[in-house]
């Protein structure tokens, strides 16, 4: 007799749904893929067909070009794919991010969370709890040392630093999809209504957020073609973390290097990156939210995809919950 655990299996290409004939966030090109969100390790180019939220499809097209897949299908309510029904639900991670619910009428329901967060995020729709038999969850920050603080408190540290060092530029490292826009929205909420300068790599995704109704305000390119170095004194500049090692960062006056990431909780991590002002702002669930989500959804089984799965499995064991690691390879452990 088949059970809900027959809904999913691990293949070299990634997580596969045999009755549906599709993969979820595969790491290699496949015929049919359902994609949770637009981060590069989950959303890859070159599949035969992709089903995702319209925003995720747009983001993939922005990143990879219009021909990133053979055919596209916008997720819209419950849709039948072969023997299963699938639906997409907000994950609160980045714009367009979704959990994928898979239902088979005789065996049950599985929910694949993708990456998710339960903190309020002004740049995307909030996480929606979906009851299920099998919860397939991420575990990026699954250690009890991770308790993300109030992100507005972290933003207040930037503003205080600008006040203390008005001659220095403040460079905030933030990933191009999601984190950058969230940091900008948080700055706006904290009352910073002046211009925010952005690295060229953030431009198109910021434009797209604005087109989707996320009011990022006055954004300007962080170039010095027409200005001089001192124009950036006391200003906020956002760029992808990779740009900070490059000569790009040298154009700013005595910059204070900030980095917005959940990993900034751990001092050694911040120091390894040469960060002077660590900002603990994460788009993933922290330990209390992760364990609370499992308790709340109360699935019959919890499957753990990527991250610190050992700790989450241990917690499940202590709670008397059935759980197993999927040990999916190919996802970036450290991106946040």
């Amino acid at each position: 007799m088949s059970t809900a655990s027959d809904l999913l299996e691990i293949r070299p290409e990634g997580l596969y749904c045999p009755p549906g004939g599709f993969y979820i966030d595969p790491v290699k090109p496949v015929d049919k893929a359902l994609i949770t969100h637009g981060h590069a390790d989950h959303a890859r180019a070159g599949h035969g067909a992709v089903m995702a939220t319209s925003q995720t499809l747009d983001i993939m097209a922005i990143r990879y070009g219009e021909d990133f897949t053979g055919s596209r299908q916008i997720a819209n309510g419950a849709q039948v794919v072969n023997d299963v029904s699938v639906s997409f639900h907000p994950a609160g991670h980045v714009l367009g991010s979704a959990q994928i619910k898979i239902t088979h009428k005789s065996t049950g329901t599985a929910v694949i969370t993708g990456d998710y967060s339960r903190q309020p995020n002004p740049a995307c729709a909030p996480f929606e709890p979906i009851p299920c038999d099998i919860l397939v969850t991420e575990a990026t920050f699954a250690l009890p040392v991770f308790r993300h603080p109030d992100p507005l408190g972290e933003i207040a540290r930037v503003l205080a630093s600008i006040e203390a060092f008005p001659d220095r530029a403040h460079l905030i490292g933030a990933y191009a999809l999601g984190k950058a826009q969230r940091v900008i929205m948080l700055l706006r909420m904290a009352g910073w209504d002046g211009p925010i300068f952005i690295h060229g790599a953030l431009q198109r995704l910021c434009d797209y957020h604005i087109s989707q109704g996320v009011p990022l305000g006055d954004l300007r390119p962080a170039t010095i073609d027409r200005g001089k170095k001192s124009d950036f004194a006391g200003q906020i500049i956002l760029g992808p973390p990779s740009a900070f090692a490059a000569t790009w960062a040298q154009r700013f006056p005595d910059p204070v290097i900030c980095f917005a990431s959940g990993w900034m909780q751990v001092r050694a991590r911040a120091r390894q990156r040469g960060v002077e002002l660590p900002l603990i702002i994460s788009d993933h669930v922290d330990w209390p939210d992760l364990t609370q989500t499992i308790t709340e959804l109360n699935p019959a089984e919890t499957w753990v995809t990527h991250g610190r799965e050992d700790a989450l499995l241990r917690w499940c064991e202590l709670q008397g919950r059935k759980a197993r690691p999927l040990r999916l390879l190919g996802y970036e452990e450290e991106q946040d």
Partner: protein
Amino acid sequence: MRAFATLLERLAFTPQRNGKIIHLKQYFAATPDPARGLALAAITGDLGLKAVTPSLLRGLAAERVDPELFAMSYDFVGDLAETIALIWQPASTTTDVPLPELVDELSNTPKSQLPARIANRLDTMSANDRYAYLKLATGGLRVGVSGRLARMALADFGSLPLAEVEEIWHGLTPPYANLFAWAEGGEKPEAAAHAPFRPVMLSTPTDLAALNGYDRAEYVAEWKWDGIRVQAVSDQGTRRLYTRTGDDISAAFPDIIDALDFDGTLDGELLIKRDDIIAPFGDLQKRLGRKTVSRKMQESHPAHMRVYDVLMWEGHDLRALPFAERRGQMDQIIKTINQPRIDLSPLLDFATWDDLAALRADPPDAVIEGVMIKRRDSPYLGGRMKGPWFKWKRDPMLIDAVLMYAQRGHGKRSGFYSDFTFGVWDADALVPVGKAYFGFTDDELKELDRFVRNNTTETFGPVRALKPLKVVEVAFEGLNRSPRHKSGVAMRFPRISRIRDDKPAAEADQIQTLRDMLN
């Protein structure tokens, strides 16, 4: 406490030395006695709180958190105090307890009551304060500030000459009220203690190419003996033996203390010497780190001091004299004191740097680890400066080994797989021969970390077993026979000197190569 916690956080995230000095000065200016002196002592490692051990802290954590989850967290964070600070249940309300009150409590609470007292404090602190409090309690702040940098900040704060601060430092005790008074315009404190430790003069590494840029005639050379550097002081009846960092090891070496029948301060190498034979470093190690030493041990492992320099003699400070002049006095001094346990390190006879290279390549004694090169006119200066003194160590031994296991590093390396066990071939099997956790560059560390993540065959707790694919060149300073190691040998000071991506694992060295190196 909050101000101290903020200071530690700022220091941790300020990479530049000058920035750290500014933060310290601001703290000294804004903080009253005795809190600032206690903070200074905490940073220099002189606070001397000894009751709070890592195992006490682990015990506290175990009462609140599942031990396995704690172990995984510690493995990830890489710092015990930080792990506990983060994992502790957040306080509903926090209080800012004055630093002196906490230090007093940590020093005066009976050991049996200490765990409960610490737990209570943690319950009312923010995570940042918990971190600073636990760092304080365990000593070893590891905030990237050396004792010397802290004293530089203090000297800078009071516009005091750093050399004078260093000089009196070892005679002062926390909370240094007299030192801060001096910094704020008061009297200079008397160097209170007898037989004080004086800052030791250190050397920088060199090689033949660099030496060829210097005039041979301006330098003398002597052997670099493989013991530990010590300072022997006898001052108005008080006798002390210090390590080069100022730790007092007198109690472990009563035989040396007995021989200090003079009034002065000598710098030299502590060795084990039986008749005319200097014993290997391993023999000296048996006498280090002891609180007391048995008569039997003193007979089987007799200590000896080979003198390099003289700092003070019969009330005169000789440090400003040129080395050549001090050396002349030393000849006389060693003859006069006439102690079999104390002799003079001989100067080497060489005409050119190439002659010296030849001596270094073939030293007359196995317990020589290279040569020291000193400018004839160098005064004795505390600290490590480039120019007056050089060390030219013998070339390390090298083998090509295969990485077998990896573990995450701690501190700066936390999160990277940086602690490696490597092995060599014994027939078809790899036998582990040592561990190394440095020697590679930051880029090589990233490469090794990636290799570990992609080539793990099994995990045992924090340890990952690796596919036998990666060959590294391991450099080490010596090899001892060791019944405790499966391979029968133990390396001294092994480090990964190169990644040998050009070499297939099958061509790494055999265990016989190491056995042949054992003299």
